[in-house]
Structures are given as C-alpha cells and as structure tokens.
C-alpha cells in the first residue's frame, strides 16, 4: 500500500511507535542489563548504564545454584503439557466444530471450568497428588508431589479448556467441502485429518501451542505448591534467590534472562505459522 503522508505526521507516528515499544521492551532491556552488572552497580540511584560488565551473576546462577536443572524441569513439564494439550485439544475441538457434540452445552461447560480460580483448587490438588503419588499407577506416572507428572496433569487441566475453545473457531473456518473433496480424492477419514484438515488448521494450532507453552513456562503457583526440589521449575528457581540474606538481584536477572531466551526463540519460530493468511481463499470469494 503506497500512501503519501507528510513528514511531521510520519515523525509523530514513529515517535508513538518508539514510545510504546520502549514501554514494553524496557523491562526486558533492564533485566538483561542488570544481569551483567556487578553487585555494586545494581541497587544504586541514579541508575547506572555504564559499568564494567561481569559474568559473575551468570556464574552464580548456573554453577552455584545449578539453574539449568530448573530449565530442564521446566522444559520437560512445559513441552509435554503443551503436546498433550494440543493433541487432545485439536481432536476435541474438531469434533465440537464438525459434529456439534453436546449442542454447545458441553463446550460451554468445558470453558466454564476455566473460570475457577487456581487458588481455590490448589489445596485439593495438593492432597490429591499426595495420595495418588502413593498408588502404583501414581508411582509409575510420577504423579506424586515434587514430581513432573503432577505438574503436567495440572497444566493440562488448566490449559485444555482455553485451547479447545480457541481451536474450535479455527476448525469451524475450514469448509466441510474440503474434507468431502479429499474423501472423494481417495483419502480415508484419518488421512483427510492428517493431510487436509490439520495442515489448514496449522495457524490455530500454532497459536494454541504458543499460548499454552508460555502459560506453562511462566506458571508459579502450582509449581511452588506442588514441588519442593526435584521437579521445581524456573519460576520457583528464581524465587530461591530470595534468600534470608536479601534478594540476589544480579543472579535473579541472570536466571530470568536465561529462562526467557528459549521462549523468545520459540515464539519467533512459531510466528511464521501464526499467519491467518493460510486459510485465505479456501472458500469462494
């Protein structure tokens, strides 16, 4: 789109963009900056932008506190939770979209479970996982307290409703005649799902995966209550820098920087699939 605008207007436009961008990016910038500061430069006023950078904070977080252990836990829990959510979510959403299972009532019921505040169920969850962890099945699936399975189940429970709800609209946008056509072209029901329906729903699935993964990655309450040491995630790990001697801001910033990085990469990769344009032109226009 070629449009002629006056120079002052253009300046104003970019000014506004930088203002908004600064507002959102500054905290991240400040976090990264702090992670390289020597302790003496962190909590000073006025804030210092020029200092001799140090890797001490990273050394402390990674070596002393073994922060990669938390990253590993988080990665295991988030990725498995997201995979389960996307898998169950897309199958459920497909059947809601195509067969209108439950006439809309079941779909609404599922969404309504999302309205329950997490804090209201955390105690029952704690008790349930404590007891389930002692059973044979619970042991096999690592469902006990301070085990990965417990967090995965909790995260799936909390993300599935929204994921289904989000995906239903994506599936509804895919014309039924596309599936009919693929059937006549010789594909079975399942092949149609694999070769036509899911590829067309890819943007929706990508969006759902991003939302779910970010939620799991950032979740604190469940991780804090349901884990102690072995299955602790990054959010809990960062919290452990809040010691009796005071808050270790430098290592906190370093740990936070490390834990944000994978998410950043993931979202950038997924962005390509999140373009709605993929379904453009499926229907007569």
């Amino acid at each position, binding site marked *: 789109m070629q449009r002629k605008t006056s120079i002052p207007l253009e300046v104003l436009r970019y000014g506004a963009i930088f203002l908004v961008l600064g507002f959102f990016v500054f905290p991240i910038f400040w976090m990264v900056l702090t992670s390289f500061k020597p302790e003496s430069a962190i909590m000073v006023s006025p804030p210092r932008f020029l200092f001799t950078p140090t890797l001490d904070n990273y050394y402390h977080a990674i070596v002393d506190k073994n922060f990669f252990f938390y990253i590993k836990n988080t990665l295991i829990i988030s990725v498995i939770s997201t995979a389960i959510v996307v898998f169950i979510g897309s199958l459920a959403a497909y059947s809601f979209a195509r067969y209108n299972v439950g006439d809309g009532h079941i779909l609404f019921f599922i969404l309504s479970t999302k309205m329950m505040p997490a804090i209201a169920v955390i105690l029952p969850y704690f008790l349930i996982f404590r007891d389930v962890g002692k059973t044979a099945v619970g042991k096999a699936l690592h469902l006990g307290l301070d085990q990965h399975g417990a967090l995965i189940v909790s995260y799936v429970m909390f993300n599935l409703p929204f994921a289904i709800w989000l995906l239903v609209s994506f599936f509804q946008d895919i014309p039924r005649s596309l599936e009919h056509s693929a059937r006549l*072209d010789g594909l079975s029901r399942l092949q149609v799902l694999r070769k036509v329906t899911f590829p067309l729903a890819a943007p929706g699935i990508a969006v759902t995966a991003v939302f779910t993964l970010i939620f799991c990655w950032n979740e604190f309450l469940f991780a804090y209550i349901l884990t102690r040491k072995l299955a602790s995630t990054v959010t809990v790990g960062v919290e452990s820098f809040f010691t009796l001697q005071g808050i270790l801001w430098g290592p906190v910033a370093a740990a936070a920087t490390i834990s944000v990085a994978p998410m950043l990469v993931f979202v950038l990769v997924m962005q390509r699939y999140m373009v709605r344009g993929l379904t*453009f032109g*499926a229907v007569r226009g």
Partner: protein
Amino acid sequence: MYALVDVHKRYGLRTVALRRLNLEIRTGEFFVLYGPAGAGKSTILNLLAGLTKPTTGDVRRNGQSIVHVPPERRDAAMAFENYALYSHLSVAENLAFPLRAAGLPKAEIETRVNRIAGVLGIPHVLHRRPGFLSGGQRQRVALGRAIIRPADIYLLDEPIGHLDAKLRHRMRAELKALAVEMKATIVFTTTSSKEALALADRIGILNAGRLEQVGTPAELYNAPANTFVASFIGDPPMSFLSVTARPDDMAAALYTADGQRIGTAPASAVGLTGLQVGIRSNAIQMVEPGAAGTLAGRVEVVEHLGHSNIAVISTGKDELQVSTEAEIRLRPGETVGLQIDPAKLHLFSGGAAFADAAPARNVA
C-alpha cells in the same frame, strides 16, 4: 449404471431435500440435473458420491447397493460448487492431489497436471495458491482436479457457473469434447437452460425435491410433461395462454378468453377447466393489428439480444414472449397483432401435459 431407488432425503426434521425420487444414470451418458436453486441437485450428487446417505431408499451401482460404501472407495470424482480447493497447497499440488492419493509415479503426475492445466488454460498459475486466483481460475482448478483422473462417475456441481460468458462458452465445448473422448459417465448440475440443452445426453428436471421429467433435450423441449418443465426449458421460456375447449366438427377447438380461436384439440379436452396452451416464442408471428384470426396485444417490454429481440406482449390476461427480427422496431405501449402457429401448440391441463386418453382426474 447408477440408480437412485425411492430415495427420500431429509435434513433435520423439517427440511425435505428429495421426495421419493427414482432416477437412473446410464453408463457413459452425460446427464444434466437442471432446476432452480434449492431443488435438490447437489443432494443427488452427494448421494452418488457417498457424502450423505438417503433417509430412506437405496443408491445402487450396477444393481448393487452402495449406500454403505464410503466415498473414498466409490471411484467417483467431484467438482464442488464452492470449489473446495486446498488452500494450503499450490494449484499444481491441488491438481495432483487425487493422483498422489492414488500413488501414481511422480513423472506421470507431472505430465498429467501439465496437460490438464493446458486444457483449462491455467498453466501460468500452477505455482500459485488458490487464494491468489480469480473466481474463474479457481473454478477451472476445481474442475481440473475432478477430471484429471479416470473415475467411474464424474459429479460436477455447477462447474462452469461462475465463469464469464466467453469462457463459459469455451468450457462448454471443451467439456462436451472431453466427455465424448473419455466416454465417461458424467452428472452435471446447472441452473442454466442453455447449458443443460447444449451438454446433456439426457436431462433430469428437478423442482422442490421432485423429478419433474427425465428425457433427452429434444424430448423435454418438444414434449414437456408439465408447465414447470415447459417454462424452464428454452430461452426465452415458453409462454402460456389460458384457453377453453369447445366442441368443433370432429374434435374440439381452443378459444382464448377474448373468444379468439387459436387451435384444435382432441375431443376429450372439452369441458376441462384449467386448460392452458404453451407457445414457444418462435411459434408466434407478429402481424398488423386487427387482421382476421389474430390476437391483439400490447407491447410491454422489448429486450434487444442483437440478432433478435424478445418482446413481452400482454393480451390482457396473459403475457407472451415473442421473438422478432432485430430490424423490427417495437415501442412499449404499441398495439400489435399476433399470429400463432396452431401446429406448434402445447396443451396443458391442470399444469400437466394434456394426453388424449388421460383419465378425468385432471378435472378440477
């Protein structure tokens, strides 16, 4: 050979798409389903494709029921009215889709895709996604994807309805040639009388879920079974005049409401009410007003078609469509005389074609 036997199709509780329908589609014929929107044309295609099942009744192939055969095992190819192109694939991949599903070798697929793209005039858009094509191009891709592979039956749902007039004319010829070459069984739906007459070996006329008449284009044109068929086949459509039959020498004579005698009928027509004569626009001659044995009418509307004009002429109670030569200039409001060829009348009684030996149940 395909057959729909006593097929009743209902969607939900209220919507009846097809009512007790019996239809045979012969091997190798070009069968056109023709009717207004919502008549049930697409439902018949879906039944033949296996995309829906009849509520009651049977769908058969060569005498065997195929109701429970899933679409992928029916060997049917279909072009959808809304195109149903795979928007995540390029045009070439769309065309190749049924061939890949069938497991053809790559080189063979490429040859066939290029050939069909040439026939359809779309080789320059093969690498594009369907979203970036015009409506006409998309429709050609949809048609191409259906006819690219050999199939037992081709189901084409208004496949050229959205093309511009010139292209439609060309595609009509291409389709006809293709059908002859492939010796394929084709079921084609359309809402255009011209398309139906030009393409079909046989036409089935559908109206509100009922088959009104099945026959060759000539049969339907020359001997329509009822006024619906008569008014639907041919362009311009047949016009109707209400008449009464009075006894005449040997048989009966037909008189218009103004008492003008316009033709003869078998004696059994005498006394029937609801008689109408159907007249094709080319069976009416325009003459000087007031001449003996002619109808008087007032010109209402004149459509200029280039090679001829179609004039809508009111006789007071009825309206007649008359085709005239382009040189004859008519003005709305003008009074003209109409000479109707008595040999070219179609007599209808209570909406159905009048048959001499018809039982008296047609009497209202």
